[in-house]
Structures are given as structure tokens and as C-alpha cells.
């Protein structure tokens, strides 16, 4: 019973060490295999008319801000979001270019902010994992010492074994979640690019 726990704990730690090796020295807390790109640069996703003259104006237009909130949300299927944008631009016959610029400026700001918050969350979890790894390491050593003692206290050994089992399980669960969440910044990139492309096509 005890050895599998220790082995499990050590395997988890070995995995956490691998994470450390893969890290970019500029971002020591970044837990993902995907390279950390702190911000999406405008030029990577937009080749349409310059948007520096619209800045925050998208927030002042209730129709635009409602559309941005809807199409930026990942629960809105991409096809539906693209169609919403198309319909909105078709209805804004007066100044289609301005409407397109406003929607894109809103999406760029909203999705970049969402992306940053996901990335900050990932780094926060990574710091927690490091503390957890340290705790598992010291508990493992304590357990080994207790077991090899000349008069082992079985009650305490069982207690610590149990604790170690839980610590390892939580560590492993978090690791799986992190791996999944690491995909989220890319998903946001894809969405911003696809919606930006839709707007540019409508403006051409």
C-alpha cells in the first residue's frame, strides 16, 4: 500500500520537473508546452483599415458593444458569430467601414483581455503546483523515515500515507486541467483571427 503511494508521488514530481525544463526562461511560471505569446499583435490578425482612430469608441455604441459581447463569447458557435457580424455590417449601410472598425476594435480589446486573464490564471496555478510539489517531496521523505524507524508508529504512518495520497491526487488533477486550459489562449487567437477575417472580407 505504501510503496505505490510513494511511487505515484515521485512520478508526479518527475512530471513537474519536466514542465520546468520545457519552460521559457523569460516566463518561469508558464506551465504550457505552447510558447507564451503575452499579447496578440494587431498586425498579426488585421490587414484592414487602421483602427487607431476608433480606440474605445466601440463601447459608446450599444449595438456594437452588445454584438462584441455576443460574438466574443466562446459559447457562441463560430459560424453563428460570423453570420451575426455579416448581418450587422450589411445593416449598417451608412458607414460600413466605420462599423467594421468598431466591431474589430471591440473584439481585439475584449479577446486580448480574456486571453491575458487565462494566462495569468495558468501562471497562478503553476506557482501553487510548485508549492504542492515541495510539500509532496517533504512528506515522502518523512514517510520513508517513519517506515524505516526502529519502532514504527503504524497509526501515524497510515495518516501520512493517506495525506500523501490526497496531495498527489490533487496535484495530478491540477496538472490535467492545466494541460487542457493551455489550449485556451490558442482557441482565443483562432476566434479573433476568424472574426477579423470575416470583417475584412465584408469591407472589401
Amino acid at each position, binding site marked *: 500500500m505504501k510503496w505505490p503511494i510513494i511511487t505515484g508521488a515521485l512520478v508526479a514530481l518527475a512530471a513537474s520537473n519536466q514542465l520546468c525544463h520545457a519552460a521559457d526562461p523569460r516566463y518561469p511560471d508558464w506551465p504550457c508546452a505552447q510558447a507564451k505569446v503575452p499579447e496578440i*499583435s*494587431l*498586425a*498579426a*490578425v488585421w490587414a484592414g483599415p487602421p483602427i487607431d482612430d476608433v480606440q474605445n469608441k466601440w463601447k459608446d455604441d450599444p449595438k456594437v458593444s452588445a454584438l462584441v459581447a455576443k460574438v466574443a463569447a466562446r459559447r457562441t458557435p463560430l459560424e453563428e458569430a460570423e453570420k451575426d457580424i455579416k448581418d450587422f455590417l450589411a445593416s449598417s449601410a451608412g458607414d460600413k467601414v466605420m462599423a467594421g472598425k468598431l466591431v474589430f476594435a471591440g473584439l481585439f480589446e475584449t479577446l486580448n483581455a480574456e486571453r491575458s486573464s487565462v494566462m495569468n490564471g495558468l501562471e497562478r496555478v503553476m506557482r501553487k503546483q510548485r508549492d504542492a510539489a515541495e510539500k509532496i517531496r517533504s512528506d515522502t521523505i518523512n514517510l520513508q523515515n517513519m517506515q524505516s524507524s526502529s519502532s514504527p508508529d503504524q497509526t501515524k504512518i497510515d495518516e501520512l500515507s493517506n495525506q500523501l495520497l490526497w496531495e498527489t491526487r490533487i496535484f495530478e488533477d491540477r496538472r490535467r486541467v492545466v494541460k487542457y486550459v493551455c489550449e485556451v489562449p490558442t482557441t482565443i*487567437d*483562432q476566434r479573433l483571427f476568424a472574426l477579423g477575417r470575416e470583417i*475584412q472580407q465584408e469591407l472589401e
Partner: protein
Amino acid sequence: MWRYCLLPGLAVWLAAMSPAQAFIAYVSNEKGNTVSVIDTDSWAVTDTIKVGQRPRGIEFSRDGKFVMVAVGDDDTIDVIDTAKKQVVDTLPSGPDPELFTQDAAGKILYVANENDNTVTVIDLEKRARLGDIQVGVEPEGMAISPDGKILINTSETTNMAHFIDTAKRQVVASVLVDSRPRFAAFKSDGSELWVSSEIGGTVSIIDPVKHAVTGKIEFSIPGLRREAIQAVGIGITKDDKTAFVALGPANRIAVVDATSHKVTKYLLVGQRVWHMAFTPDEKYLLTTNGVSNDVSVIDVAAQKVIKTIQVGELPWGITMSPR
């Protein structure tokens, strides 16, 4: 490469007979472990074929009956029967094959094996390995000169384009290029060899006779950091007048005047654009966009993106049916 063996007269006849000629494109999806089949008439994915692990380099056989795709993590090349739309055989490459090229007759295949610094030579009729050629570290880009005498292999770590004599199967010259060379292409008249460098973000123009770099194409896009501009795939029109260069995470294709080597335009395509293929009539150019999981269709004459087609996960390579 099919174009060298097709009679120009036949091409004209085909163009005259059926102006809306449909071609078939095969796209390798590196992460999806599939190949997407695109019909260029409907611009839709008509089939998705399961292949081995990590498919990258992909090319039609000269007769159009088979498509070969390097499946790096399975250390082999899958052969797809284009009538059955399934893998029917494998070819004996070395470990981790990435890109390959075939001679004009379609009889010999040269495969770059990323993991053991060799190029494997395969007899396509017998589907048997003929031998290996030692090259630089992490071989990658492959190209054959129009006269078939010289094979080019670029090595990612050594940063060189190796000139291999196809008769002797020996490296006869090596030319230093910018960091991490990815792809090599000859002009149809054989006068220039173009080699793209992913990290260097440039295309080196090489004189294939003197084995010397004679010029360099650089790219700059306002608002984009230099490291986001990574030159990878290259496509040159048959008349050697216009070239297209894929710029990876810059999400753009550069249009280059192939005579003056000046960039004339940047086209926003999809995310992490990697490789490309022309339709045989050169009316359209299709690019694979790895991160947005799609293929962009460029109208070559208008130099405009006209369509986007969703494919599998992480599209990497693309090849077009010869007819």
C-alpha cells in the same frame, strides 16, 4: 513538379476543353493524423483519410494514382490509393521522415529523415530502398534541379543547402544560408535556387552553378515583430515571373517579383501559413494554415484571397493532382 513532364500543348488543350477544370488537393493534417481531400470545383472537403502519426510532407505520384505522405512518428511514408481513398502501402524511409521529392520521371523518391541526418533513396516502382546519403544535421527541405542532375537538401541545424549529385549520390557542394532553412525551390529555367530560412526570416537566392548566395529577400510588415516573420513554403509560377512565400506566424503570403526579388504585396491568409500548391493551370494557389486549421485559396492573377476551407487539425503540407 508534374509540370515538367506535361506537354505544353496538352495543357492548352485541357484549358480550352474545360475552363472550369476541377482538380483535387490533398492536405496533410499534422496533429489530426489525417489527410483532407479538397475538390477545387466546389472548394469543399470531399474526404478525410486516416493516415499514420504526424503526417507532414505530401506529394502525388506523377501518374496521379497515388499520394505519398511522410508520417514522421511512424518512421515511414504512407501510400494512399487515390481511387480507394485509403492507405494501401508504405515506403521504407529512415527515422522521422519529413519532406521528400521525386525525380521528373517519378521513378525515384528522395526522403529527408530528420532524425538520422540522412536522405533515403527509394525506388518507387519496386517500393524498395536503394540506399542512403549522409547530409547535415536535421535534413529538411528537398528539391530537384529541372535537369534532374542535382538534388538539394537543406539541413535545419547546420544551416546549409547541400548540393547532391544524383548520379553519384554524393554531396558535391554546401552553401551556408540563414538560420533554420526549411524549403528549397528551383526556378523552372534552373537559373536560381531559392531557400527559405524560418528563423532568419529570409529567402536566399543561390546561383546553382557557382554555389553562391547572390541575393536575399527580406520581409517586413509594419506592427509585426521580426521573429513573427518566418519564411517557409515557396511557390514560383512556371514563367518564373512571380513567387509566393509563406511567412508562418505572420499569417501572410508575400508576393515577390521573381525577377527583381522585390516584395510587391502581402496577403493575409490564415494563422501560421506553412506550405502551398498551385492548381495545374496556375489560376489558384492553395495555402495550409496550421493554427487556424484551414486552407486559403488565392486567385493568382488578382493576387487576392477568395476563399477559406476548414480542414483537419494543424494542416501542414499540400499537393495537387496532376490532372
